[in-house]
């Protein structure tokens, strides 16, 4: 599915920095560049997958996109409207159109409240509905996400992980949002249940014309749901493009290593793919390396990479890569 031209969400050189420590701690005040200069355009109806290792800034970026974090630098546009610095009151009408689903449904659902109440909460806050209207809408939502009507009176602990995530999803779609940011929505679930939730998300997208930003560390799940993907490394996007193309022919050496490291079920031993094992660990975002941030681990790094930082530029139609020496695709 391809979107129309009007972007639903756009970031322009968005950065998020955190200050850590105090002037009394041994290293003094320091600044973490969690998200660094990210420009991303999300079009209506598409699913953008964000992938990268832990600590690459994908969750921080997600939280900036729904303004759970304040943005340090750059701009955030929602449906053409600059919401970078909007106050909480100004954000309210935007929030109902911009929702988020979190990884751990047992941590994001209040254990003391019935799930019917939890799903009704956004309706009470945002929608002008009578209590009968709210009940009706909750029943509709339960049906939409595959929960039974008599589940409304139960507490979160009475559900399995998959059902709890359905509650989390029902809450997120309660107000008919345009965009849902999903941060690792299936990672905490059992393998046999993951597929159900992936299918549910696809069905809801079709029915409700939703746009998704999907974050997961499981690359095969990301490939399944995404139309486009963005690969992040140390706070920046290093490659972006149509999901199929990036997975079959990654251009950035980091994307290549990441995709090659995924263990897959191989039925024929000859079909085994060549694996690129990266040396070392992800450097600390407190002291990112000079030049290309990936160069200390990059198997093809040259002198230029050590001094000059590559920008994310169009490499081929629809594909961007931040590398001086991208693989020819």
């Amino acid at each position: 599915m391809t979107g129309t031209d009007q972007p639903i969400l756009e970031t322009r050189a968005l950065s998020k920095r955190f200050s850590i420590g105090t002037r009394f701690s041994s290293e003094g005040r320091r600044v973490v560049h969690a998200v660094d200069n990210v420009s991303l355009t999300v079009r209506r109806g598409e699913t953008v997958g964000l992938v990268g290792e832990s600590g690459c800034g994908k969750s921080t970026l997600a939280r900036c996109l729904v303004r759970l974090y304040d943005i340090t630098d750059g701009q955030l546009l929602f449906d053409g409207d600059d919401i970078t610095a909007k106050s909480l009151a100004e954000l309210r009408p935007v929030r109902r159109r911009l929702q988020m689903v979190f990884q751990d449904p047992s941590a994001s659902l209040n254990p003391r409240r019935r799930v019917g109440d939890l799903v009704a909460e956004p309706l009470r806050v945002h929608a002008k509905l009578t209590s009968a209207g709210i009940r009706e809408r909750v029943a509709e939502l339960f049906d939409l996400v595959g929960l039974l009507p008599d589940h409304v009176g139960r507490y979160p602990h009475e559900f399995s992980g998959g059902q709890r995530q359905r509650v989390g999803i029902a809450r997120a779609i309660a107000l008919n949002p345009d965009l849902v940011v999903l941060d690792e929505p299936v990672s905490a679930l059992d393998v046999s249940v993951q597929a159900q939730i992936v299918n549910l998300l696809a069905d809801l997208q079709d029915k409700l014309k939703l746009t998704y930003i999907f974050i997961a560390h499981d690359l095969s799940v990301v490939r399944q749901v995404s139309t486009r993907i963005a690969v992040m490394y140390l706070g920046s996007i290093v490659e972006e493009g149509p999901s199929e193309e990036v997975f079959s022919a990654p251009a950035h050496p980091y994307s290549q290593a990441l995709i090659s490291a995924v263990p897959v079920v191989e039925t024929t031993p000859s079909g085994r793919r060549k694996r690129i094992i990266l040396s070392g660990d992800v450097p600390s975002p407190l002291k990112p390396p000079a030049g290309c941030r990936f160069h200390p681990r990059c198997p093809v790094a040259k002198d230029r990479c050590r001094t000059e930082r590559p920008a994310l530029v169009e490499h081929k139609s629809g594909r961007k890569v931040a590398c001086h020496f991208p693989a020819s695709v």
Partner: protein
Amino acid sequence: MMLSVRDLKVSFRTDDGLVRAIDGVSFDLEEGEILGVVGESGSGKTVSLLAVMGLITDPNAVIEGSIRYKGRELVGLPARELRRLRGNEIAMIFQDPMTALTPVYTIGWQIAEQIQAHQRLSRSAALDRVEELLAEVNFPNPREAMSRYPHQLSGGMRQRAVIAMALSCNPALLVADEPTTALDVTVQAGILDLVRKLRATHNSAVVFITHDMGVVSELADRVMVMYAGRIVERGSRSELFNDPSHPYTRALLGSIPPLTGDKPRRLPAIPGSPPSLLRLPKGCAFGPRCPARYEPCDAGKPDLAGGSHAAACFRVAQA
């Protein structure tokens, strides 16, 4: 035969009644063999291996059956004797390396302590050995890493330190419980390489517990699939992945989205969720979710039937 487990049953007395976490598990392991144990949470994969290690200390646990290690019965062995085996002959690594490391001592100190607990070595000789081990698990600068505390290392480095600790006495048997689940795929690839290297250099046997079918297919010689406390299918890697016979194995493999090739519009999902051990169905535990269920499935629990490639399913037995 290095390890031979027969009809292992583990039950826990709880407020809600007796819970049978493991219900008749039998398997063998030879030297130098890597056995993959796959299953979802609550399938009993961890508990069965904790029982093998003698690490179930819960007074409400009841362990029945036989666990023979190099011919010696481990069930009922005094704690002292077991302790001598653990660490020396049998080592275990867990999902979260912080459970195996103390935050208040340096990495070097902890690994040296472990070596000295099992071998007569001077402190300086033990420290030299630590340096060797850390180099073996790909620490770029082992001497420097030895003076670090666990919180100063990344998750992947911590897990490698725990592996170095597990390897310190050249264990004949290594039990790894989801050692890469909390790690990134790029780091995971390195850990899997280390496990293969251990087998190649020391001919150690490895039991690798995971929920990731991809990991098992890359690493294991033989595979055991567990569901609700029982083995539902076992076989060699190629038997299991080329010709899965139990409906659960087939469904599980089918529900994993592919990384290459055509992607299905919808994933073939398994309905429902894994059963609670407190409320197991009367017949086959997978019955309520099984596409191939028929009358016999509701009546009794199928036994594991077959030779090296075996499945616990009435349909398979009938075919």
